[in-house]
């Protein structure tokens, strides 16, 4: 804009002040946005910086003569330095491997054995408590190409472990899936049905209004209270096993229900009333109208709401701690009654460990959880975009 000419007949003195005010407001709003973006970027950067190394793991090449004696005492055939380098978990597992391959007996086998967490940290350039002697040995191995990084499949395919290099996210992933299945199969149908009843069938009286107000309030209750409720009702009263995906899923279902009801009601409300009128004018019953003319256009909205509620439940930790899902779970749950943990709970457990390997895995776990949540939200947005009809 060029310099303002005060004599052109369009000059309003207050206008400059108003403009300045608008500009100031714009800058305040913009700086707020920049601050929140900066926080987000910093968080993501930090998680990637810490988490990415967890996706690779050090492996070391060793020769083992498979004999009865060596299998009985797996520490016996390694020299002092190698014992510090190779993971205890790997050595413990060697007899199992040999048992699975009886033809190995009497031969010498070459393995890429999992390295211990300290050696792994040394390889990644992090803090470690290795003796200098061992460090030199690792440098030598590096030179000869006998120690290297591989993709860390352990992280994705084993459960938690007290041996840091052997600890993985698998049981937490399975636990989250089982828990979410329970939550979804309870909260989504009950929530959507309730919303349909309240929005389409319930008479508009004091009782209905009372119920609706309370549902809205429930959506705002701190989630830990749902944990206490789950503990009191499901565990203490109905005797559902503690720490199980069933009790966790039911507790999270309690928490998701109000959110699903509120968003489904909004989706139903957004279907124009003229559609219902048209149906009544044709002598259709209320159920026919709702089933065939109101639900189809409301469905994307209801699904979106449900997915977002489930994503929220998936990131929830507090209520699950109360119903015991924070336990140390090395083996993935096989059914909804066995002890399980979930991703955020596993992250919480690891975050309390002092070892660098666990700190790394904490960040990696957060990255996995974040990508699942982002995927879920993307699916929700996609569904809404794809199926929303305008009329």
């Amino acid at each position, binding site marked *: 804009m060029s310099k303002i000419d005060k004599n052109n007949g369009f000059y309003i003195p207050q206008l400059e002040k108003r403009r300045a005010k608008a500009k100031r407001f714009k800058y305040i709003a913009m700086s707020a946005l920049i601050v929140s973006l900066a926080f987000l970027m910093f968080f993501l950067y930090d998680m990637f910086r810490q988490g990415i190394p967890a996706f690779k793991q050090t492996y070391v090449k060793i020769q083992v003569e498979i004999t009865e004696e060596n299998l009985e005492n797996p520490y016996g055939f390694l020299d002092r330095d190698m014992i510090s380098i190779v993971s205890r978990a790997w050595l413990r597992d060697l007899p199992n491997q040999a048992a699975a391959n009886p033809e190995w007996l009497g031969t010498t086998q070459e393995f890429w054995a999992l390295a211990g967490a300290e050696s792994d940290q040394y390889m990644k350039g992090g803090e470690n408590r290795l003796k200098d002697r061992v460090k030199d040995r690792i440098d030598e191995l590096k030179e000869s190409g006998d120690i290297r990084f591989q993709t860390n499949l352990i992280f994705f395919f084993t459960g938690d472990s007290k041996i840091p290099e052997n600890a993985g996210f698998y049981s937490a992933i399975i636990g989250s899936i089982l828990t979410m299945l329970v939550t979804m199969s309870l909260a989504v149908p009950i929530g959507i049905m309730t919303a349909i009843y309240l929005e389409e069938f319930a*008479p*508009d*009286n004091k009782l209905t209004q009372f119920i609706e107000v309370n549902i809205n309030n429930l959506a705002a209750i701190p989630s830990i209270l749902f944990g206490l409720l789950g503990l009191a009702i499901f565990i203490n009263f109905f005797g559902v096993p503690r720490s199980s995906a069933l009790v966790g899923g039911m507790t999270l279902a309690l928490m998701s229900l109000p959110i699903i009801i509120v968003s489904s009601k909004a989706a139903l409300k957004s279907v*124009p009333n*003229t*559609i219902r*009128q*048209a*149906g*009544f*004018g*044709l*002598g*259709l*019953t209320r159920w*026919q109208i709702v089933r*065939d*003319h109101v639900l*189809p*256009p409301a469905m994307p909205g209801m699904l979106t709401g449900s997915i977002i509620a489930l994503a929220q439940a998936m990131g929830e930790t507090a209520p699950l701690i109360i119903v015991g899902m924070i336990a140390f779970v090395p083996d993935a749950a096989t059914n909804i009654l066995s002890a399980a943990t979930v991703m955020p709970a596993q992250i919480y457990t690891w975050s309390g460990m002092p070892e660098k390997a666990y700190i790394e895995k904490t960040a990696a776990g957060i990255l996995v959880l974040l990508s699942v949540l982002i995927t879920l939200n993307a699916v929700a947005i996609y569904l809404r975009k794809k199926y929303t*009809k305008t*009329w």
Partner: protein
Amino acid sequence: MSKKVDMKVDSNNFKGDMGDGEKKIKVSSKDLWLWYGEKEALQGVNLDIYEKKITAFIGPSGCGKSTYLRCLNRMNDLIDSVRIEGKVEIDGHDIYAPGVDEVAVRKRVGMVFQQPNPFPKSIYENVAYAPLMHDIVKKGSDCDELVENSLKGAGLWEEVKDMLKQPGTALSGGQQQRLCIARTIAVQPDVILMDEPTSALDPISTQIIERLMIELKERFTLIVVTHNMQQAARVADMTAFFHIGELVEYGETEQIFVNPQESRTEQYITGKFG
């Protein structure tokens, strides 16, 4: 509620003197009162509507035309605050009698609304849905035939016969309104109620629908609310003038427009109020 106090017995009792005696009464309301909560909206309306005629309801905004129209197919039952007293008879049977299912009444008395409101479905499904639900036809060629005939009946067939799978909402406003009419006649009602069916349409579409109404009265009893005096004069056989919840005057359209008996009717028609 001072029901009896200011009821004008004379002006509220019309039998619609038609001259020739072959007119059959299709719909008849007897002393029909209606309240929205505490608010009185209809004050004892007595009205006989004749079979296979077009009856127009005119009157200033808020006088209760739509309210009265909705009484004739029990659409007011959907509003929680409504209380109704009196009788509405169709072919001599009270539709408000205990044990009468309002859904069954609405199958006999169809309704077309001010805003075209096709279902968010295909043109075909818009027409076929209700007849299938009422078991009027089975899926298949019978149903196809009914859809075709209904669309022809609504004068829309030629325009949409190649796009039956397209969404009904993709049509123009006037076409949508004819689709709504097709959908209504597909259910094969006796009576069709139309609440300002052309007020959202352009003059050409309006003309098409007016012509359609005249065709439809061969088969149906039509009751039309309109704010358009010319429209009432053009299409209606009978006209009823409402004012503040009261039926002021009812008679043959020509008589109402040329020789109104009530001064309020005359003032309204000549544009002095409303």
